[in-house]
């Protein structure tokens, strides 16, 4: 039997800035101040992301978001947020060094992930702009589908990143794994 055509491509995403943001969306001052810094509203629909310019914001919980920026922008955005929210009860923490993102793409990308995730990854259910924290195999990850393409981003804790990549390569083996990087 011939080698199967590559059904999955795995890549390590370049380092990016990340800011863990906590705050009370019911206090109108908080979302307003954040929108003032980001230039757009925080996503309020559970498990969705919103993106504009160089920033993407992922909904992580009723009072928790993850802001993704360019690596070089992390400190500046965190600083501007902290300044815009001086008297509010909130938390702003730069966490870009704490995790590594992988891109899993190709026609069998969802199958690779489904081997280790119990989420329903049907493209019609886990749609563009959906995100969720869940387990991949035996580690916690953040899964994000940024656009309509079959590209999934898996963000894993830095300490688990070698295991995560190892696991993804292994899971992709039967579909033919075009590794962009390893």
């Amino acid at each position, binding site marked *: 039997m011939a080698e199967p055509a590559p059904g999955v491509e795995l890549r390590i995403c370049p380092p990016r800035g990340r800011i863990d943001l906590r705050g009370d969306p019911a206090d109108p001052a908080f979302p307003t101040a954040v929108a003032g810094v980001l230039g757009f509203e925080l996503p309020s629909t559970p498990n969705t992301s919103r993106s504009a310019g160089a920033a993407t914001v992922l909904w992580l919980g009723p009072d928790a978001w993850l802001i993704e920026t360019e690596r070089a922008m992390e400190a500046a955005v965190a600083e501007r947020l902290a300044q815009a929210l001086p008297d509010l009860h*909130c938390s702003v923490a730069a966490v870009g060094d704490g995790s590594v993102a992988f891109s899993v793409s190709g026609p069998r990308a969802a199958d690779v992930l489904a081997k*280790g995730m119990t989420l329903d990854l049907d493209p019609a259910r886990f749609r563009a702009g959906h995100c969720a924290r869940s387990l991949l*195999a035996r580690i916690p990850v953040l899964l994000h589908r940024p656009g309509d393409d079959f590209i999934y981003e898996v963000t894993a804790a*830095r300490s*688990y990143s*070698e295991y995560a990549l190892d696991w993804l390569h292994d899971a992709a083996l039967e579909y033919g794994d075009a590794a962009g990087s390893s």
Partner: protein
Amino acid sequence: MTGQPYRLAEGGAIDRSRPVGFSFDGRRYTGFAGDTLASALLANGVTLVGRSFKYHRPRGILSAGTEEPNALVQLGTGARGIANAKATRVELHEGLVASSVNCWPGPRCDLGALNDLAHRLIPAGFYYKTFMWPHRGWHFYERLIRRMAGLGRAPEGADPDRYERMNAHCDVLVVGAGPAGLAAARAAARGGSRVILADERGLPGGTLPDAADTGRLGETTAELEDLDNVRILVRTTVTGYFDHNFLIALERVTDHLGPHAPAHLPRQRLWRIRAGRVVLATGALERPLVFANNDRPGIMLASAARAYVNRFAVLPGRRAVVVTDNDSAYGAALDLHRNGVEIAAVVDLRRNGEGGKPAEARAAGLQILAGHAVVDSRGRRRVRTAHVARLDDDGSLTGPVRTLSCDLIAMSGGWNPAVHLFSQAGGRLRYDEALRAFLPEGAPQAVRCAGAINGAADTASCIAQGRAAGAGEPDDRAAGRVEAASRAPWAVPARNRAGEGRRFVDFQNDVTSADIALAAREGYQSVEHLKRYTTLGMGTDQGKTGNVAGLAILAQTLGLAIPEVGTTTFRPPYDPVTFGAIAGRDVGRLADPVRRTPIHRWHEEAGAVFEDVGQWKRPFYYPQDGETKHGAVARECLAVRNAAGVMDASTLGKILVCGPDARALLNRIYTNAWDRLEAGRCRYGLMLGEDGMVLDDGVTACLAGNRFLTTTTTGNASRVFAWLEEWLQTEWPDLDVYLTSLTEQLATVALAGPNAREILAALTDDIDLEPDAFPFMAWREGRVAGLPARVFRVSYTGELSYEIVVPAGDAMDLWTALTGPEHAVTPFGTEAMHVLRAEKGYLMIGQETDGTVTPLDLDMQWILSRKKDFIGRRSLARPAMRDPLRKRLVGLETGDPATVLPEGAQILAEPPSGVPEAMIGHVTSSYWSPTLGRSIALALVQGGRDREPPTVHVPLDDRTVRASIRDPRFYDPDGVRMNG
């Protein structure tokens, strides 16, 4: 056709253009693509396939499917060996190597058959009655019995195959791709649902005997294959049905390809399916009849005989007796007849051999013996004769016994709906007297049954029920049911009073009708007890053919109705699941996740030996050329005491605690007070569980007014984070606090030793390191080696020490700068750290504490605030916590300074005298202290340091070591070094 004397020239779903060579018990045979091992063996005239479990009776092929109790074979060899594969389900592939199980030297001549001759000595419960005396004897008997009783051989060596697991979601899961299942899948798919259709066979289409019907099903299959919203899983057995419509299925991906399987595919895949709705179209399994010597090779289920002749174009015999208590076997008789099998007679247990089916058979010229039964058989390696007698009105035998010569007895004792999964789902079963079967009742979850599982006997009813179930519309569950002969006996009576000839109910476990009656007489009257006592329904087939007859016979013996006896519990798996498939890819290097610090590569290149701490890999010690562990640890310890060392402490848990109520939270979580901790300072804290036992410890720094950075031990990082979140979310939602884990974001390097200040001074120009400006338990922000850093002046070694915290991405640069040759800094691992802290008498969570140790036991009253409440405080007030007999932390010094006690060693007050005596404590930590040039140990001992006399005894395997209790601070008890 040479070599396949029982193969028909035409027909069947086999490919005669593709011969397939295989071997069985060392002999080579040829079958065709599309054969199962069973059909290929029958085509070659092989009817004797193995020996039974207990009596080693010659056995052949009973069925054509998963229910097979007899035809178990060993496949392959070595690490790829498979025990107890069902020949009826093994798809033939070139080079298949199979052999019989449970016989030696072979199935034709088997020494274990001596058991058969001695069967009167080994009735039901034989093991329990015989081998329990003398009491200790079992350990001896067990070895022999295990060898004799073993069924198949376990594979040898590590499993070389890959196994995968897959999670799947669907709106409708259809189990079984026969007429009902295909109709259900099509109806659901046409309605737009996401459908998974799973079937254990290699092709959808079920087991319909009629080729024309099968053709129509092929059209449905083709339609389903074209739909994007349908996933068809063949060779996939749904084997477990759990709550919330969660089901497990095993797909045999490449088993049917043998050594020709593509390397990139797994051998098997375990599906974990979450279904909105489930349609069970699992069909029904035919029951054997219970008569004397009903287990000989050549005696098979009528449906199986029909399947072999129709689907595989194999004659299961040349002259057949068909015996039945229902109409379904007439179809088998006619199909066998049409294909050239001589039908000696159709023996119908029912008195009235009327109706459409018997008439059809009569018209075809078949002899029908209504009101008769097969009462016995003869033939050792293959059945030779069937013995037939008349049944009178009360079901007893009457008149002469006729002998019919034959090489095939095709029998049907009715049908058991395959309700296994329905029962696993929590469904109730109802015994239907008219159908003589247990039927699914109600709907425990979102599940529907369709087809023969409901008792439907005709294809049209199956399709109608399937369509309705798939579409979610109401249906007629009772459609297509055919009444059974309610008066036919469950066991044909014995020919004479001696009751000669065993009548087998459970073929795999050699359970006879007499065993069931015996068990009932001996008091095993519950069906669950009966099962354990006789082994009825155990083994690889779980009694799929024999169970119902078995419990009917029990009911009859007890004079009860069948529903009063009930069934045993159906448990997963429906069909055995390979362990490899359950493990999936969680094997080898992926067995457990591994966590690595940002400095891991450096440690590796430096030749560090790693220690597993939870999932983390931490440098244990760094051996230099030829150094032993002892030598390396001693060198690292002395370097820290005399110069300076660095340790990667990045694995410590770090939690950002932020909000107006952050101090209030810390006050409640920790035993000490946090009101006065200023920005720039840090403090050691101890947290307890509600039971007052020590949970964790660590240093917390005040970053700014309401912002704190808390550290936890490595092993408890996630537990402590969850603990804080739980209190905040469930008990104290009024506290305004946000927690953010920074464990992964921040890396920590500890620089310790008398030279630490000097070294750090060379790497920073914006932090004033003078002791007055930067005292012990303070922290400063600045640049270290050009990197933005927070520096904490804390110490776990007892030396002057700084913990430098940087973003993880900068950790390697920091470490490289610190370990540069100009600084003469020695990297040290966790073992040196353990020794250094033990020299100081510092506790280690998980070593000195084990969930039963309070701060009082540790002589840490100083850390318990009297001015506020905290978790665990009330528990500490219980009188038992002040019991003088509680074990308390002490230092231990052995009489001989060279003796290092083993950790975990028990402690006695007196030298052992040979009689059992109370243990008063145990050693929690024990090391060689290179600093002190002697052994040191920490221990938990009753009475603690107040114990009189202070001498205790530690019994080891070969001697007893005397030791004395002392202050656990062995080194620098006043802390001059770290405060300096």
